[in-house]
């Protein structure tokens, strides 16, 4: 498939253009966006999800543009120039350290380019699926269920680890090849030029279809935005129930935030509503009529009736006494990044005061987009 490169014969030239301006901007913009996406995904907590989505989307958009450029760009940007045949790969490997110098990507480098582009697309797909299932947001929110969230999240993470590995190999390959051929390959990705030497493998020139590339890329971007927006508007099945019944707000939310009914299974609500005399360390007794009314509303909209991540997290609470959500393993796992002192702040005060940091806690969503840990108020 590959255009056959031919050995260069002529004068040594240190100004042969190899990487065009698009390729160079693409490469370094991809470095920045991938580093931000990896850092926000692996190192930072859920409140950084905006940065993760923006950097991840940027990386995918860059890759899509690069794929278009691979069919429309100049000589060394073309997939047809560098995607190697099996024969070329085996010849390259057999030659070992004595292989000929490629002006463009060598066969192994080319395989890495293809792997990185494919992996970033896979990260985009699994990321959108994880967002749609686990967090019920974005274009796939209506078509995936919250129960698929862990699977997509794990696939997304796995792809992230593979990307980390490939980046290490990529940088390693650049260092090894730079030493072997006594040049700075990373510098070429800045200047766009490479020294041309006798015996180099040079590809026959191909024209750039700039207008076609711009049309295709803008078409794809507009198409993607319209599709994503459209799909994101689709109504969800089994969202958390809307604003609480008046009586629930009056009697329960008098002492604490109005915990959403979907954060517990019906059995746990029944247990709790049957033992209000000992309600997490206080007497919260209610007149029997009110107690029955509130218990009925809570069990009617309990975890099993809702498709959301919080409903799933606590859907199998089976303690014989109702456990406070902050005492559950799931809660602790999700709050490891919050230090002890924050919970003591006057404007948070209690681990069970979800709404101090989760603005949407009473809706039952607990979206990571709604997290903001308040600052300690001045006395």
């Amino acid at each position, binding site marked *: 498939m590959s255009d056959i490169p031919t050995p260069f014969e002529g004068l040594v030239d240190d100004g042969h253009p190899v990487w065009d301006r698009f390729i160079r901007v693409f490469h370094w913009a991809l470095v920045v966006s991938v580093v931000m996406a990896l850092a926000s995904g692996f190192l930072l907590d859920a409140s950084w999800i905006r940065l993760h989505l923006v950097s991840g989307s940027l990386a995918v958009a860059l890759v899509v543009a690069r794929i278009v450029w691979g069919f429309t760009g100049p000589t060394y940007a073309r997939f047809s120039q560098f995607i190697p045949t099996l024969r070329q790969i085996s010849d390259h490997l057999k030659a070992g350290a004595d292989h000929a110098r490629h002006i463009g990507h060598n066969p192994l480098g080319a395989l890495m380019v293809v792997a990185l582009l494919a992996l970033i697309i896979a990260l985009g797909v699994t990321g959108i699926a994880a967002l749609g299932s686990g967090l019920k947001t974005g274009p796939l929110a209506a078509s995936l269920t919250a129960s698929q969230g862990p699977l997509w999240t794990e696939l997304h993470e796995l792809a992230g680890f593979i990307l980390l590995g490939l980046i290490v190999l990529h940088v390693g390959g650049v260092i090894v090849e730079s030493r072997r051929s006594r040049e700075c390959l990373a510098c070429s990705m800045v200047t766009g030029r490479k020294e041309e030497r006798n015996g180099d493998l040079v590809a026959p020139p191909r024209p750039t279809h700039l207008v076609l590339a711009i049309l295709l890329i803008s078409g794809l971007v507009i198409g993607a935005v319209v599709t994503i927006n459209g799909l994101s508007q689709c109504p969800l099945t089994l969202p958390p129930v809307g*604003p*609480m019944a*008046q009586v629930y*707000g*009056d009697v329960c*939310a*008098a*002492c*604490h*935030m*109005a915990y959403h009914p979907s954060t517990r299974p019906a059995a746990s609500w029944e247990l709790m509503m049957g033992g209000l*005399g*000992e309600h997490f*360390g*206080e*007497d*919260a*007794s209610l007149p029997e009529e009110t107690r029955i009314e509130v218990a009925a509303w809570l069990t009617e909209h309990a975890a099993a009736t809702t498709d959301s991540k919080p409903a799933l997290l606590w859907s199998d609470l089976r303690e014989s006494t109702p456990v406070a959500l902050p005492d559950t393993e799931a809660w602790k796992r999700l709050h490891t990044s919050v230090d002890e002192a924050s919970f003591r702040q*006057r*404007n*948070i*005060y*209690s681990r*069970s*005061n979800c709404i*101090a940091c989760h603005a949407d806690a*009473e*809706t039952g969503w607990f979206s990571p987009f709604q997290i903001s840990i308040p600052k300690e108020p001045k006395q």
Partner: protein
Amino acid sequence: MKHTLILLTALMAQPVLAQDTSPQALIEQYSAAAGAAASPENGQALFMATHSGGKPDTPSCTTCHSADPTKGGQARTGKPIDPLSPTANPERFTDTKFVEKWFGRNCNSVLGRDCSAQEKADIIAWLVSL
């Protein structure tokens, strides 16, 4: 939509008070039932003391209401509590059912028993005097 929800929640969090009584009427009522005059000093002592008969997380009225009832308190859940003293909060002690509900719950939480009519009269008398 979000703001409407917040407003709605805020409105619903406010108890609808019947306004069927007054702090003075309650003091008289409880004193009559106890058969003795209300003592603000005893009310203050009861309110400020640390008790051991109730639930371990709420040893005193001040646990949630703070030691200054003219200012707000904070429930163990983080939820703010409006000032208890009618001087600072005229809505206090104007709804018999509301007063009885919270004396019932909170005396049990703090003392492990119901408050006597005398104790209720004393506490309200102290809160009014602030």
